[in-house]
Structures are given as structure tokens and as C-alpha cells.
């Protein structure tokens, strides 16, 4: 894990279910280090990142041996969360409708879009580059 002037932090994770807890711990640790202490904000950032990580694992078209890098950056109005991967997957920029309560699957993306204020996907243009999924969450009033 790297800390750059306490404004951003990044960490690399293997594509394994056992990493999910570490992903959440990293986001929580980063929020704390970046002076974002409101529990509902931290929980939302944790869950959005967790679901995004899962989405890349399941649908990102990446090799299992390829890592996912997560970067947390404090910005003036909130927190930027960037997930980098080398897969061939795509990501719809359109917010999906939350499935009805009795439907078992398909909530991951809807949860991400509900928890953060901005979702952007930049697809790599060359094999050697990284895709970037950018989530931005505004800070609420303290």
C-alpha cells in the first residue's frame, strides 16, 4: 500500500473472494487516513467498492492471475475510488433499475449507482493498458 501526501492511497488485490474483506478494510483505512470519518459515508464507500470489485471479478473478463488495483483519493468535495483492471469487459454507464424485492440476483450495479454520485468507466485502448472504473462520492455535511 502506498500513501501519497495523505491525499491518495492505493493497494493491489488478487482476484479472489478471500480478498473482499481486505478490500473493505483498505477503503475503511483510507477513509480514516484521508480524514473522512462519518460512518454512513465509510460504509457506503466500502460497499460500493466491494460490489465494483465483485463486478470486475465476475464480468471483467480478466485473467484470474491479473490483479485489481484500487486507489482512494481525497478531493475537495468528496472521495474518488478508482479500480484498475486489465480485462476485456465493459461497463454500462447507465444506472440500472433496482430489481424488485423478490428477485434474487442482479443488484450489484444498482447498489453501486445508488451509493455514489458519479460512475465513469474508461476502457483501455491497448492490451497493455488498464481499464479504469471511477466512483465518486460527495462528502455530506459534517
Amino acid at each position, binding site marked *: 500500500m502506498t500513501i501519497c501526501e495523505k491525499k491518495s492511497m492505493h493497494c493491489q488485490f488478487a482476484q479472489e473472494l478471500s480478498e473482499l474483506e481486505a478490500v473493505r478494510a483498505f477503503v475503511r483505512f483510507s477513509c480514516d487516513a484521508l480524514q473522512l470519518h462519518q460512518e454512513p459515508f465509510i*460504509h457506503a464507500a466500502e460497499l460500493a467498492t*466491494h460490489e465494483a470489485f465483485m463486478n470486475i471479478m465476475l464480468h471483467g473478463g480478466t485473467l484470474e492471475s491479473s490483479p485489481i488495483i484500487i486507489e482512494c483519493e481525497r478531493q475537495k468535495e468528496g472521495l474518488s475510488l478508482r479500480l484498475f483492471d486489465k480485462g476485456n469487459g465493459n461497463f454500462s454507464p447507465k444506472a440500472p433499475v433496482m430489481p424488485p424485492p423478490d428477485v434474487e440476483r442482479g443488484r450489484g450495479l444498482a447498489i453501486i449507482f445508488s451509493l455514489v454520485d458519479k460512475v465513469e468507466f474508461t476502457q483501455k485502448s491497448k492490451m497493455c493498458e488498464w481499464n479504469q472504473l471511477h466512483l465518486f462520492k460527495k462528502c455530506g455535511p459534517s
Partner: protein
Amino acid sequence: MTLPHIVTDQVLVITIPEDKLDASNASNTKTQMAALYTSYQLPRVVLNLEKLIFIDSAGIGTLISFVKSLREKGGDLKLASMTKPVRSIFELVRLHKLFESYPSDKDAVQAFKI
């Protein structure tokens, strides 16, 4: 490992023993809940969530699957002792419309008698 559970007034009360129900343990939890139902044949179930502080879309899917299977058998699943972060996710995904939630096991068991 079997999930902690007791039977009271013909209601199966299961406790989720971990602080998370996510993609890493949802499948195992689903299997264990189904096994407990098979053992006791009691379709009225209370799930104690007092230790649970994190649930993701996979964990949510597990609870929906379980409640649907119980309702098909004429039973139901009621939730007890839900923590604040889990309640906020339930409200976000509108799951509070699917489940009845009670402050304690005792209240949830009592609700089956009404």
C-alpha cells in the same frame, strides 16, 4: 459447521454468527440454512442478525432465496436484531418490503403466533 440455532414454540431461530454475509460466505450460509430446515422441517424461521454489520448483493440474494423457499412451504422468515448498517442496505434495495423485522428473537417468534 452448523449455524447456531434453537427451536422455540415450533419456530426455528437461526443466528448468523459472522459479522459479514457476502460473496465469500453466502453460498455456505445458504446450504447450512437449507440443511437446518431439512433437519427440523419447521418452515417458520427467525434469523438473528445482531452480529451482522455487512451484507452485499450476494448475501441479500441468499436471504431472498431462503424466504421464497420457506413461503413455498407455507412458512415465512422473520428477521431479528438487525444492525443499523444492515438496515440501511435493506432500505436501499427496498428489501424491508419483503421481510418483517423485529427488535429481538422473542418479538419475532411472538409475531408468528399472531
